[in-house]
């Protein structure tokens, strides 16, 4: 049977990087085809070529056997290819109706017919089981709803191919299942679905076939049956994954030592109920909970990025008082934010400048680091974290997502902290680097650092935590001691009973 979409020999190069190298890819009607690979493997690039957001340097794209040119997002849509990108690319300030119907507004006597537009919009949303007030601005809804609106938009009447780039990244478990039900329904109706994800479990749940990219080349393709997870992972990272993650952590330091970070009743009205968290040197405390439980908010409250209106924070016995990021840094606490794009990287500045920024803030403006010192620190970190770059003077914006995450981590480490707060440290980081970071966290706590790790990946928490604090609905609900930490226990505690 002819493939619905067939991509043959597509290549795309940027200065210094070959993003795609003669890649073949095809997806058939009524199939969910997963596209997997590490960061920088070329997944997003391939998707962008398929949806007209990027033009390939060479190669052929065929739709139902006929060659087509996808010059723009409009052209792809006209060809029946609908796309939903990783960041919900809609306009939050506009109403849901406008977001859904932009570009295909129905007309009457030359002017837009809004009543008809609203009817069509409601219809589209109903197909996905969504019933909301479509006149409100899109931004007033949760990310999950926004994502469904994006999918509803992508599902034009004559869309036959749906491309989803990391659609579950911001969804909780329940919302993911809801999405998968919709996808299965679409599959049955003959839709060809391309699906990028790095959540291996989810891929095995929903995909029929898997294509693996590595370094811009296709290294494997086959049905889900033919590709057990071990083979999949080894294709993605090129060598056997040392299952270091499964070794339970041992606690080296004195459990009776005074905690280095004490947070007593710290909270903020309408953001987070008061929490009590202690960290001891050499300890890793995990922070678990569903999306919306307040994990990031708690991390930010401790760091001072969100100002608490209740409670106190002590670092090494000294009261922090009115917390602020600058103050926390000076006391030896650093923070790696979850959203690296909007809160982490300074994309125009060089890798070197990004790395030394926190340390420089700590020193103050009158004590600038010498250029030589900056170069030394940057080179050290590039090597220690295996940041894939040939040049520390490159603007950070040119690095792949995973490497950007590493730069932010480097920034925190260089500032010489006693306490390190990590919010989703492995988000968007490929499987290989994943293990590196887990090992790094272990090494840091052996060196006497105290770490608070917020993560939605339970395996990660199990692998590194000595204790796990569980949040639910903006409240601290439980703490799981080291001996009890298992995946099941965490899920159970989060769910509550």
């Amino acid at each position, binding site marked *: 049977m002819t493939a619905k979409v067939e991509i043959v020999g597509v290549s795309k190069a940027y200065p210094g*990087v070959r993003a795609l190298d003669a890649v073949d890819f095809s997806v058939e009607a009524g199939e969910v085809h997963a596209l997997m690979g590490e960061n*920088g493997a070329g997944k997003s690039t391939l998707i962008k070529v398929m949806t007209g957001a990027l033009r390939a340097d060479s190669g052929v794209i065929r739709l139902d056997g006929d060659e087509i040119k996808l010059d723009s997002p409009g052209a792809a849509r006209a060809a029946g290819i609908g796309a939903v990108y990783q960041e919900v690319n809609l306009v939050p300030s506009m109403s849901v109706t406008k977001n859904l119907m932009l570009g295909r507004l129905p007309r009457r006597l030359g002017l837009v017919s809004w009543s008809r537009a609203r009817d069509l919009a409601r219809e589209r949303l109903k197909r996905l089981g969504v019933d909301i007030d479509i006149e409100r601005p899109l931004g007033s809804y949760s990310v999950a709803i926004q994502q469904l609106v994006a999918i509803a938009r992508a599902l034009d009447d004559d869309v036959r191919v749906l491309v989803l780039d990391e659609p579950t990244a911001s969804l909780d478990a329940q919302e993911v299942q809801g999405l998968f039900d919709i996808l299965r329904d679409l599959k049955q109706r003959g839709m060809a679905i391309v699906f990028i994800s790095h959540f291996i479990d989810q891929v095995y749940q929903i995909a029929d076939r898997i294509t693996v990219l590595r370094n811009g080349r296709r290294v494997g393709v086959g049905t889900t049956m033919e590709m057990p997870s071990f083979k999949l992972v080894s294709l993605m990272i090129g060598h056997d994954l040392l299952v270091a993650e499964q070794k339970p952590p041992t606690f080296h330091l004195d459990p009776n030592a005074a905690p280095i970070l004490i947070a007593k009743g710290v909270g903020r009205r309408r953001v987070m109920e008061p929490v009590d968290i202690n960290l001891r040197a050499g300890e890793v405390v995990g922070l678990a909970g569903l999306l919306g439980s307040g994990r990031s908010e708690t991390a930010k409250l401790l760091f001072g990025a969100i100002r608490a209106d209740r409670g106190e924070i002590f670092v090494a016995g000294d009261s922090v008082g009115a917390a602020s990021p600058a103050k926390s840094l000076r006391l030896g606490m650093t923070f790696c*934010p979850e959203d690296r794009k909007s809160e982490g*990287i*300074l994309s125009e500045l060089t890798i070197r400048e990004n790395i030394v920024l*926190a340390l*420089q803030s700590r020193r103050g403006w009158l*004590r600038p680091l010498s250029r030589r010192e900056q170069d030394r620190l940057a080179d050290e970190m590039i090597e220690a974290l295996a940041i894939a770059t040939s040049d520390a003077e490159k603007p950070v914006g040119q690095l792949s997502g995973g490497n950007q995450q590493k730069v932010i981590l480097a920034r925190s480490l260089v500032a010489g902290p006693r306490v390190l707060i990590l919010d989703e440290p492995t988000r968007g980081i490929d499987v290989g680097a994943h293990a590196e970071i887990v090992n790094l966290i272990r090494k840091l706590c052996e060196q006497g650092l105290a770490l608070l790790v917020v993560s939605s990946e339970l395996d990660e928490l199990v692998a590194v935590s000595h204790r796990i604090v569980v949040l639910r609905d903006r409240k601290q609900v439980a703490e799981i001691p080291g001996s009890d930490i298992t995946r099941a226990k965490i899920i159970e505690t989060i769910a509550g009973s």
Partner: protein
Amino acid sequence: MTKETLSAGLAERAPLVGVKALLRHRMIWPVLALALILIVDGVISPGFFRIRIVEGRLFGSLIDILYRAMPTATVALGMAVVISTKGIDLSVGSIIAICGAVIVWRIHAGDPHFVILLLALGTGLLCGLWNGMLVALLDIQPIIATLILMVSGRGIGLMINLIYGGTNPSFNSALLQGLSVGHISLIPTRLVVGAGIFLLLWLLTRRTAFGLFLESVGGNPAAARLAGVNTRLIIYSAYLISGICAAAAGVILTADTHTSDPVSEGLYIELDAILAVVIGGGSLSGGRVYLGGTLLGALVIQALTTSILSSGLPPEYNLVVKAVVVLIVLLLQSSNARTALVSAIARRKR
């Protein structure tokens, strides 16, 4: 990325040398523009480059350009600092007007002239504080925040005049004259003042961490804050610097005219200053601060004006020529435009 891609990347990024490297550098365009204008000048007006020494000071068209460019250049330097924080200061012209009114007021009140100088700078500081408060504290967009002082500032200046000095009051001040038209050995005093301001700002941005903080705030204020940068203070400082620079220019301009004319003093100087920054390589969306480039940009703008005057073209042509040249420089700076031009030429050759 693995080692394979890494080495491939390394091979492709062979160090840029020669003409290609030069062309990539942002400052090449203002330098070229300035050189071109000066060359055209040299052709049109023989003796353009001649520098004479008369009565112990330097004279000549080149000196004239530097001399007249100083106020705009000073304002532009402050503007460059503000622009790098992704901000803008439209109120500099009005700040100049207010400073002028304050100067004349206090001279008539009999204050010692040196104190008046400090008062003028203090006025600029206050205005900068006001702008800074609106942007840093109240989180108002810079273009709108500084628009407030831009709209009302000249009115404030007029008000000060009315209350204390009458319409367009004039004055005499040896100190201010000295600053504006005097000279230290051969060099006009104002150039020394200008160079001093440039030096101070250069030291501040390149020899302390202030420059890094400035550029980080302009790049991503949320990220900068999380990295421990006191973004509020940095933004305040930027507008303070702009205010003081405007005040300095105001002192010179007021001394030039011997009067306070709030309606027209420093009119449109903010536009010239912004142009100078952009020609010098700065971007309105924040980022790097190019102090040297900004100076060059101010010189380009002044050189244009001087060239038109000395060429015999009626002064009405000034604005049009300025607009055209600025557009050309901007088009050349834009890579899209360059590529289009190159391919158009290539097509023509075939």
